């Protein structure tokens, strides 16, 4: 467990949006598992914190939810991206990329300077 990182404040929403985009409609448990797998099991995700984040995204209109049936025939709540969510994902991705790029320049070994 020691090698795992906590989820940074605010990045969970972006991960959720991105995962929903690539996987399509998904229930909470599936989302949580997928986020962990995608991170190469480097993230320690407290599953309990996922639900308030989902609720917040839903309140903001980026995702919507409805009850459905899972692959092994269990009733579960499925989340899917809305149009606004798709736009938000694009924006957030661009912004995040820019941020990491800026940060990368600072952290890169100072060979050229």
């Amino acid at each position, binding site marked *: 467990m020691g090698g795992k990182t906590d989820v940074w404040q605010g990045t969970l*929403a972006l991960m959720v949006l991105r995962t929903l985009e690539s996987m399509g409609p998904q229930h*909470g*448990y599936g989302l949580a598992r997928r986020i962990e797998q995608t991170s190469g099991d480097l993230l320690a995700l407290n*599953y*309990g914190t996922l639900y308030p984040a989902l609720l917040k995204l839903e*309140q903001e*209109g980026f995702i919507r939810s409805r009850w459905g049936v899972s692959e092994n025939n269990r009733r*579960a*709540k499925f989340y899917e991206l809305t149009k606004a969510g798709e736009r938000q994902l694009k924006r957030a991705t661009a912004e995040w990329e820019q941020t990491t790029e800026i940060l990368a320049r600072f952290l890169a070994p100072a060979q050229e300077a």
Partner: protein
Amino acid sequence: MLRLLQQPMRKCRAFAARLLGLLRARRADADFAAELEAHVALHTEDGVRAGFTPENARRQALIKLGGAEQALQAQRERRTLPWLENFAQDLRYSLRTLRRSPGFTATAVLTLALGIGACTAIFSMVYAVLLRSLPYGDPGRLVYLFTPDPSLHLPPEIFSPTNADFFDIQRENRLYSNMSFVGQSAVNLAGQGAVERIGAARVDENFFSTLEAYPEWGRAISTGDQLQGHDHVAVISHALWQSMFAGSPDVLKDSISLDSVNYRIVGVMPPEFGYPHGTDIPYGNAEVKTTETWIPLALTPQQKADRDNASADAAIARLRPGVTIREAQSELGIIEARLDKLHMPLLQGCGALVKSFLDIVVGPVRPLMNLLLGAVILVLLIACGNTASLLLARASDRLRELGVRAALGAKRSRIARQLLTESLLIGVGGGAIGVVLAWLFLQVLPSLNPGNISRLGEASLDARVLLFAVAVSVLASVLSGILPALTVSRLDVTGLLGGSSRAIAGKHSRVQSALIVAEAAMVVVLMASAGLLIRSYINIASVSTGFSRSTVSMKISLDEHPGVTSQQQAAQRSAFFHSLIARLGALPGVSDAGAINYLPLSGSESLDTIWVDGYANRKDQLAEGRSITPDYFRAMGIPLIAGRAFTEADVSSHAHVVIVNQRFAQIYFAGRNPIGGRVGGDNRHWDTVVGVVADVRHFSLEEAPEPQFYHPDYGGFDSAYIAVRSTLPSRTVAAEARAVVRTIDPSVAVADVHTMGELESEASAQRRFQTTLLTLFAGVALLLALAGIFGLMSYSVSRREREVGIRMALGAQRGDVMLLVLGNAALLLGLGLTIGFGCAWFAVGVMKSFLFEVGGHDPLTLCIACVLLAMFGLLAAIVPARRAASVDPMQALRAE
């Protein structure tokens, strides 16, 4: 970083969703429980597939979830608005605690209600008088134009431009978008049966466009209306439309008779429009309170060219956007410098003055409104201090309860918030009752109205005033709640629960003591201010006016008869007044009757340049000149000091005689016998002084009498005030006089029937108004402060019962105990008095302009204020002191 992306709209949407979440809490909880259930089941299935036992797998799933209950709570907090839920909880809790101690609640609410009520009432008045926008477009750009002659030593606002000057300024200026010339007068309006006297304005075609106020019905006065023969049209006020024509739309086909001339009605102004009001035009016609009709000024070309004699009462102009008064002033200076040379030599020397419309219209009452606002703010602060003190006392009684809450995990901010919620509830209650109090105040306000504050009657509790009341209530709750909330939340749990509550209470009572000291200081300032006003009022009331209070006066105005020569007109008037005075004097019960053209305290004035034989005369010698009938002095009860009064023979023979007042004699006949002296005016012959009469206060009660002189006359006035001295009640006299006037000429109106005493009381009405209000507020403040002292002393006695018990057990007498408590109160009062005395000493400087023959630093008034507070303060402390003295030492010691 992602947070930056959240647009405000999304936040709003989320907020709305959370607000809705509050309503659907139960269903959403069930929904989420089902979702979690599914989550755990899915996770468990995965675990079983990976080879765990079902129990183990489920345990793992729950651990990974971080506990079902915690997840549920986190979800709940996100779903709804926790602070709103907390607030609702605090509200319920506060309501319960407040209901549990009704005595405390009632005291706190009523205290705040007094403060908020006073503030709201005065604000509604100030709002109506000063702040509510006038019914003219952008009044900030309106100005008055004057052309004062400084060498005459008269107020510059007396000098409006003469006709020719006005039209030249209108042609040459570059800075005004519009200019208008306005004449103010009172006219006889013929109604059903009786003739009524109303305010009228003669206006040019630019009047309505300059003010940017237009008729609600019909049209305004136009350029065509200014032509001779087309000028008998009138715009009437909304009130007149309602009273005379019952609001009928056919009014535009109707006409009104003003001074026996018919005017066709062309328009009706909106209800709020009444410009010019009596106080709108400096030194305007005091008979006019509000204008009811507007008719064309209709100047002939000859009149327009008159540069030396004719002028309207006011020249108003609207500045072009962006133009300052200073720029307008310098432009008018340049124009008038050229025009001045065109005047006849005696009238040269005119300057230029541009004054803001608002300064003239609302400026005069502004200091009074500020004074009253200042006073109610002090009252509000005292009320807040009292409530804070009460809350503190209660908080220290509740230390244990608060300690338990803190120990059970309540955050300090939560405890502070709960206490603030309580004071907010008290503030809301106080605000509600305060608005009722303000409403009651507004019901009695009309009876206090001194009559010279325009728009005072329009004060009402409209939306803005109510908004103000809400704001003041919230402010008051925060002001009184913040101190207790801070002190309590700063204490630690052990302090709250442990035995040291006594020390904490001590700390509290130090804060409370400071509050009482501050309150006492503010009360001293208020009482000293009220005291100064009361003394000024007493001084005014004891001023000798020079005339008898019981004399009945009334105004009689004769219509102008165009087409009659001035000699014929004078003869007609003379005959009218002769026969009127003679018949009035002959009425049973009437001892004397006389007439004068300008009655004292009627707001009218006429100044003449005079020359006195044997005196070093100067150019600007002015005196109040009057025309009177022979019996005027007897009718008014003005004593003759020397010489003789006028006789009928003086009038009929046009004798060159004059009577002067004492002041005149003192100045111009110093060291000489005035009788037989000679007085003259411009282009006039000498008149011989035949008598000296006592001084009369003419313009106001507050100004020392000026030199006055009287000429005998019956026909020199188109309107005159009749003075009747009789033993009959004033109403009978008025009825008799009306009957007499009707038999002579039924078209003549009898107006302004008053006893001179009533005029005197009207002249001091504003003083009475301000004195009454300030005294009322000082009284309320004193009452509040006494309640505060009583409360604090009772509280500290109840806290110190044990100490008192020990003292008594050790041999202290009951008297000593009483002295201990009283000494404590005296100390606080003394401190407050000292500070208040100092503050009052500086604060009353502001009041200088409100005082009459009292110095601002009047030691007597200040001392009386201090002594009163000290006396009442100790009285308030006596009850708790007696209770302390009656403590049974055994009981007290056993209690804890």
